[in-house]
Structure formats: structure tokens, C-alpha cells
């Protein structure tokens, strides 16, 4: 079979809604674009642990500390699960898990914009769980039917746990919303801080990038950035307003005639700066990640069985 025929058969499978598996023949652009997408997802999960872990020692109660710890651990766990899927796809290209991880430090792999932002108050920690994880579930749930089987399967577990993260975040935010005037103000300020990063999270409405086109063509993704952002508005804006809280956009409203939410565009230059790791805390968080990766090298070495010491089976 020629590559032309293989490609035609591959496209026919995609169009029939079949799932692609790691060992199947696939066009290079599918493999390469998927590796990049999953690598960014996996490492964003890992980087997502850093903003929130700052609040583990400062959580207001033991119960809050426990649930936050569980969430932070889940994020790292999601990174592990998705890296596992990505490295299988990268192996035929001679690329290893370590290569995928290292590309975060060289800037070849980006991580989600929201994890470049500071978390100055406990309310910010709550808003991350409520709205950032809410935004993440909106985009990940849209990938549960992705054409790549191994990724779709792993997302089922990831989404189930994100469901817990959202409730954890809502629990914090609802407590603050029903708390003292100072607590409500803290939540209100955090909402205003996170609104723009949340809009940026979904990406520009008009996506013409090569990778976005490829992901759509092969039905890895089926929803556009704007469709996902609109879904996010529909789920969350009415809830924010129902608590008597405001969002920092005077033009934000549901347009009945157009059947869509109207909003003020965020400052896209901020997303471009973040993509170059020039966001507010990009370098600081990458530095933390690099230190933790290097300082844990001995653990990976010990677990690899290459350390020289003989493993004794009891």
C-alpha cells in the first residue's frame, strides 16, 4: 500500500468516527500535532500544581488543606497519565518522556496561560478551582470523543477528577460569598483578576493556526475556541451574577437575537507574551519546576533500577 492509499484509508476511518490507536498507521502531521497538544496538556497539568501548592501551607482550615492537597496531587497525576499517552506516540520518533519534559524548559513546549498568573489571596485559590477548572472541563469534555482513543480514554478519568476540583473550588467560593464583607470583597477582587486570563484561556475566536486546522481536520477536536468560550459563559456567568458578584466587563450580556454572549475582547498581546514565557510569573514558576525536576533526579534514578543497588525481593 502506498502512503497515499494509507492516508485515504486513515481519513475514511476518521470520517466514520473510528478511534485511532497508538500502534495504527497514522500520517506524520497527525502524530506530531497530537504529541505537541498532549505534551502541552500534560505539562500544563504539572505546572497547574505550582500556583495552588503555594496555598497548601496557608489554607485556612485543616479540611481545606486536605482538599487542596488532594487537588494538587491530582493535577500531577493527570500530568503522569497524559505523558504516558504522549510518550507512546513519541517513541517511534525516537523521543522520550524526558525529552518531552525538557522542552518545557527550552520554551519549545508552552503551558496554559492561567498558570503564569499570581495567586495573591485565598479567594484566588478558590476561583482557580471554580472557574479555571471549570474552563478546563469545558474544553476537556469536548475532547472526550476525540479521534485518538488512548487520549479519549485517559480524559475520562481526568474529567471525573476535575469534577471534584470544581466542587472543591465552588465550596471555597460559596463560603466566601456568604462570609463577611471583607471575605466577599476578597472574592470579588479575585474574580476581577481572573476574568481576563479566563477569556484568554480559550484562545482567539479566529483560529487559523496550522495545528488548530490539523486538529479539526482529523477530528481530534470538533469544537472551536469560541464555541467553548460561549459554553463557559453560559455555565458560569449566570452563577457569578446570582451571587450578587460582578465581572469586569460592562458589555457582557446574553444577546437573545444572536443567541450568543457578547463580551469585550481580552488583550491578546498578553497571551502572546505568555506564549514566550514573559507572563507575570512565567520565569518564577518555570524556575520552581526546573529545581524540582533536577532535585528529584535521584528518585527517578533509584526507581529506574539503574542505580547499581540490587533490588531485593522479600
Amino acid at each position: 500500500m502506498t502512503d497515499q492509499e494509507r492516508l485515504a484509508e486513515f481519513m475514511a476511518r476518521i470520517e466514520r468516527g473510528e478511534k485511532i490507536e497508538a500502534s495504527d498507521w497514522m500520517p506524520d502531521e497527525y502524530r506530531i500535532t497530537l504529541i505537541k497538544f498532549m505534551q502541552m496538556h500534560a505539562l500544563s497539568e504539572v505546572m497547574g500544581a505550582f500556583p495552588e501548592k503555594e496555598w497548601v501551607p496557608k489554607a485556612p482550615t485543616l479540611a481545606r488543606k486536605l482538599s487542596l492537597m488532594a487537588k494538587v496531587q491530582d493535577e500531577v497525576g493527570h500530568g503522569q497519565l497524559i505523558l504516558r499517552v504522549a510518550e507512546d506516540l513519541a517513541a517511534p520518533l525516537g523521543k522520550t518522556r524526558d525529552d518531552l519534559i525538557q522542552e518545557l524548559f527550552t520554551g519549545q513546549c508552552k503551558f496554559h496561560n492561567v498558570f503564569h498568573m499570581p495567586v495573591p489571596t485565598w479567594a484566588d485559590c478558590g476561583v482557580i478551582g471554580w472557574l479555571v477548572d471549570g474552563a478546563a472541563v469545558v474544553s476537556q469534555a469536548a475532547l472526550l470523543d476525540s479521534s485518538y482513543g488512548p487520549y479519549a480514554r485517559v480524559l475520562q478519568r481526568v474529567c471525573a477528577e476535575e469534577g471534584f476540583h470544581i466542587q472543591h473550588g465552588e465550596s471555597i467560593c460559596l463560603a466566601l460569598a456568604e462570609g463577611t464583607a471583607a471575605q466577599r470583597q476578597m472574592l470579588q477582587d479575585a474574580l476581577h483578576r481572573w476574568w481576563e486570563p479566563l477569556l484568554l484561556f480559550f484562545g482567539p475566536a479566529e483560529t487559523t493556526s496550522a495545528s488548530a486546522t490539523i486538529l479539526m481536520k482529523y477530528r481530534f477536536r470538533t469544537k472551536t475556541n469560541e464555541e467553548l468560550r460561549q459554553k463557559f459563559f453560559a455555565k458560569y456567568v449566570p452563577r457569578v451574577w446570582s451571587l450578587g458578584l460582578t465581572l469586569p466587563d460592562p458589555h457582557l450580556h446574553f444577546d437573545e437575537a444572536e443567541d450568543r454572549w457578547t463580551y469585550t475582547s481580552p488583550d491578546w498581546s498578553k497571551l502572546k507574551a505568555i506564549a514566550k514565557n514573559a507572563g507575570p510569573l512565567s520565569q518564577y514558576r518555570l524556575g520552581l519546576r526546573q529545581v524540582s525536576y533536577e532535585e528529584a533526579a535521584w528518585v527517578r534514578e533509584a526507581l529506574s533500577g539503574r542505580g547499581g543497588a540490587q533490588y531485593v525481593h522479600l
Partner: protein
Amino acid sequence: MSIYEVFVQKDHTTPHVWVGSVVAGEPDDALVMARENFLRRETAVSIWVVLQADVHRTSYADKEFFARESSKEYRMLSAYNKTNAEKWRKYKRNLLDLEKDFVKD
């Protein structure tokens, strides 16, 4: 480091079910990795880890292997229960149901 496929058994009445894979240097480490990755919430009574290289598998492309030469309807409950139920109605009797009449009763 090797890839281990992970199978979790939730309780003694259900079979081990494949949940994913982990990378580890030793089987015992793979068991710990599996617990940390897949059982942070759910309970279980047993985990199996199997070296991926030791798994013999069919190819997804090999549709022939799963081909059906003929209908298997005659092996199915559904081929009989509707007609039987209709007949029992004449004798004012209900069709016995495995779950309802034998397992649960």
C-alpha cells in the same frame, strides 16, 4: 524502565479491569505507581501489573480475526424470550427472569 499495563479489581465479585499503564523499573514499584495513579479515591482489593512486552495482542487492523461468518442470534436470549413470553401469556403466566426470579428472589 519498562511499561507495565495495570489491571484493577474493585471487589471480589468483579473481574480485574484494565485501567491504563505506568512506567517503572521494578514490578513492586509499578504496583505502587499504579495505586498512586489510579486509586487515589476508589477502593480496590487487587492490582495486577503486567509487563507490556508480555502482553500478546490482536491487531486493531485485523478485522478478519473478529469476523462473524453467520448470525449468532440463536445464541442470544433475545431470540427466544419474546416468543416465549407471548406463549406464557395464554396460560396466564409470566416469563421467568434470571435476575428477578432466580438471582434476587
